[in-house]
C-alpha cells in the first residue's frame, strides 16, 4: 500500500474521536445540502409539471403572467386572432384558478387549483389515470383528483360527490402521482365545468395552447402570433417553464431560502472539517517536522494532509448518501419529495471532495510554515 495513504489513513483512524467529529461534520453538511438541493430540484420540477404535460408548441398567456397558477383572462377574440394565423393547427383554451372544495361529509373547506381543458388531445388532460377515465370528465359534474389527496379532500373512493365553489362535483377519475408543490391539490375538470366553478365567462380562458401544423415554420408562426395579439405574449414551453420557475423559486424567495440553507450547510461542514483537520495537524506537528527534517518536499506533506481530507470525504460521503437515500425513500409520497438524481449525487461527491480540500487549507498553511528544527526541541 502506498505509504502516504497508509500514513494518512492511520493518522486519521488513530484518533477515532476526532475522526468521528470530522465525519459527523461532513455527514451533517452533506445531508443538509442534499435535502435542500433535493427539495429545490423537486420544487423546480413540480412547479412546471402542468406545463410539461400540456401538448403545446406555444402558449398564449396574458401579458405580465408570472406563473402558471397566476394569470388574468384572455378573450375569445384573441383565440380567433390566433386561429387566423397561417400555420396554426389548433388553439385550445385552458382555464386555471383557485376554488374552494367542500368535503362530502362536511367539515372545513379546502382550497384547490381547478384545471379545465376541453376533452380532446390538444388540451391539458390528467395523466396517470388509475381509476375511471379521462372521458368521464365529460359526465355531469365529473372531476379528477389524485389519490394522494383523498384524505385532504375527504374522498374515500371514486364516484363520491363533493362541492367546488358551492357547485356539484363528482370524482370520476383518479390519478396517481400528480402532486402539487404547495398544499393545494389539483382538480381536473372539463373546460365547461371549470369555467362554471371559477366563474369564467364562456368565451374566455387563462391560456391558449397552440399547436403548429406539421409543415409550418414554428418561428414564423410565433412571430405572426405575436404580431396579431395585443395584451398577450406568445411563449415557448421552455420560456413558460423558465418564467414559472423564476417566479416560484426566486420571486417568492422559496428557492433562495433553499439555496441559502444549502450554502450554510457547506460553510458549516467546511468549518467543522477544517477545525478537526487543523487540530489533527497541530497534534502531529512533530511528525510533519520529522518528515521535513528527513528531507521530504512540501508536496509530500501536502499529499499526506490532502489524503487525510479525501479519506474523511469518502467516509463522510458514504454515510451521508446512505442517510440521503433513506430520506428520499421516506419522502417519496410527501407533498415535496426530496429528489436525488445521478447528477446531484455526482455533484455532491465533488462538493464533498472540494469542501474537504478547502478545509485542509488551514492545516496546509500550518505545515508549509513548519520549521524542521522543531525536531530538536524536547
Amino acid at each position, binding site marked *: 500500500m502506498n*505509504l502516504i495513504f497508509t*500514513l494518512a489513513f492511520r493518522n486519521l483512524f*488513530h484518533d477515532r474521536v476526532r475522526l468521528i467529529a470530522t465525519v459527523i461534520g461532513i455527514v451533517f453538511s452533506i445531508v443538509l445540502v442534499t435535502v435542500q438541493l433535493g427539495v429545490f430540484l423537486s420544487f423546480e420540477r413540480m412547479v412546471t409539471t402542468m406545463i410539461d404535460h400540456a401538448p403545446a408548441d406555444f402558449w398564449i398567456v396574458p401579458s405580465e403572467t408570472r406563473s402558471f397558477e397566476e394569470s388574468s383572462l384572455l378573450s375569445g377574440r384573441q383565440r380567433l386572432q390566433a386561429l387566423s394565423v397561417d400555420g396554426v393547427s389548433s388553439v385550445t383554451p385552458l382555464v386555471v384558478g383557485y376554488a374552494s372544495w367542500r368535503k362530502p361529509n362536511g367539515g372545513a373547506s379546502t382550497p384547490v387549483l381547478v384545471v379545465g381543458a376541453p376533452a380532446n388531445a390538444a388540451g391539458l388532460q390528467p395523466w396517470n389515470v388509475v381509476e375511471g377515465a379521462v372521458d368521464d370528465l365529460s359526465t355531469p359534474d365529473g372531476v379528477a383528483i389524485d389519490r394522494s389527496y383523498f384524505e385532504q379532500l375527504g374522498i374515500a373512493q371514486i364516484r363520491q360527490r363533493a362541492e367546488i365553489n358551492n357547485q356539484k362535483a363528482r370524482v370520476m377519475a383518479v390519478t396517481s402521482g400528480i402532486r402539487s408543490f404547495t398544499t393545494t391539490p389539483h382538480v381536473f375538470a372539463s373546460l365547461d365545468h371549470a369555467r362554471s366553478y371559477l366563474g369564467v365567462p364562456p368565451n374566455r380562458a387563462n391560456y391558449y395552447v397552440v399547436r403548429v401544423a406539421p409543415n409550418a415554420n414554428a418561428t414564423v408562426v410565433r412571430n405572426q402570433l405575436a404580431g396579431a395579439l395585443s395584451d398577450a405574449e406568445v411563449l415557448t414551453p421552455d420560456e413558460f417553464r423558465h418564467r414559472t420557475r423564476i417566479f416560484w423559486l426566486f420571486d417568492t424567495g422559496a428557492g433562495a431560502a433553499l439555496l441559502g440553507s444549502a450554502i450554510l450547510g457547506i460553510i458549516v461542514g467546511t468549518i467543522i472539517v477544517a477545525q478537526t483537520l487543523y487540530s489533527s495537524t497541530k497534534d502531529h506537528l512533530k511528525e510533519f517536522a*520529522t*518528515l521535513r527534517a*528527513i*528531507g521530504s518536499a*512540501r508536496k509530500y506533506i501536502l499529499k499526506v494532509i490532502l489524503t487525510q481530507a479525501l479519506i474523511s470525504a469518502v467516509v463522510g460521503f458514504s454515510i451521508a448518501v446512505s442517510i440521503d437515500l433513506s430520506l428520499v425513500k421516506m419522502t417519496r409520497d410527501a407533498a415535496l419529495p426530496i429528489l436525488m438524481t445521478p447528477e446531484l449525487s455526482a455533484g455532491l461527491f465533488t462538493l464533498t471532495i472540494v469542501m474537504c480540500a478547502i478545509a485542509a487549507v488551514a492545516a496546509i498553511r500550518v505545515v508549509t510554515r513548519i520549521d524542521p*528544527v522543531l525536531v530538536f526541541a524536547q
Partner: protein
Amino acid sequence: MTQTMIEANEIRMALGEGAGRVEALKGINLSLAGGELTLLMGPSGSGKTTLLSVLGCMLSPTSGSVNIRGRAVTGLDAEALAQVRRENIGFVFQSYHLFPTLTAAENVRLSLDVRGHRCLDARAKAKEALATVGLGHKAGAFPRALSGGEQQRVAVARAIVGNPSLLLADEPTAALDSENGQAVMTVLAELAKDPSRAMFIVTHDPRIVPFADRILRIEDGRIVDDQRSGANVRTLRPLKYAS
C-alpha cells in the same frame, strides 16, 4: 584516503532580533571526513544544536559557507535544502521521532518514500536496514511495542537506509539507559566505519566518548578543542557503559 563529506567555513549564526539578538555561532571552521565518528560536546547554550542545524541544512547561517561533498549549499531556499537533506543526510534524534502509527519497517521505508523510492525494492532495503541494526525480527512491530533502545535503533535504520554521506545525531543516547545506550552506540560506531559516510554526534553523554575518533568541544559559539584519538578508540571497550 578519506573523503571530506562536509566542510563549514567561518560559520556565524545570529538568533533573535534587537536587544534579544544572540550570536550562537562565532566563526566555526570544520570539516568531517568519511569513516570518522566525530563527537561535539559542550555545555548547554554553547551552540551545539545550532551548529548541528546548520550542518544538517535546516538553518542557513548568517554568514559563512557550507559545502557537502563539494557542493555549496549556503543560501539555498527551503525546498532546495530539503532536497540536499534527503540526498545526503541521515538524522538520529534524541526523542527518536518515529511515527507511532507506522510499523518499524514502515518508519524506515518512509525515508525512502520521501526520496521517491516506492517499489518493492524499498521494502527489501528497509528490512535490510533493520537487520543491520539488529532488528530484522521486529519489522512489523509498532513503536509502542519497542523499548527505547529499539526505537532508537529503528531511527538509526531510518537514517542509514538512504545511504547518506553524512549521519547527524542529536543526543542519541540521552533518553536511554546504559544497556540500551551501549547497544545504540555499538551500532552507530560500526556504521561509522564506512568510509563513504561521516558521522557527527552532538552529546552531553561522557559514556560515548570511547566510541569517538574525534572529539570537538564547543563553548560560547566557538570550537575550543579538537582532539583525535591516537588509537582507534572504537575498538576499545566502552568502560563508562559498563555496569
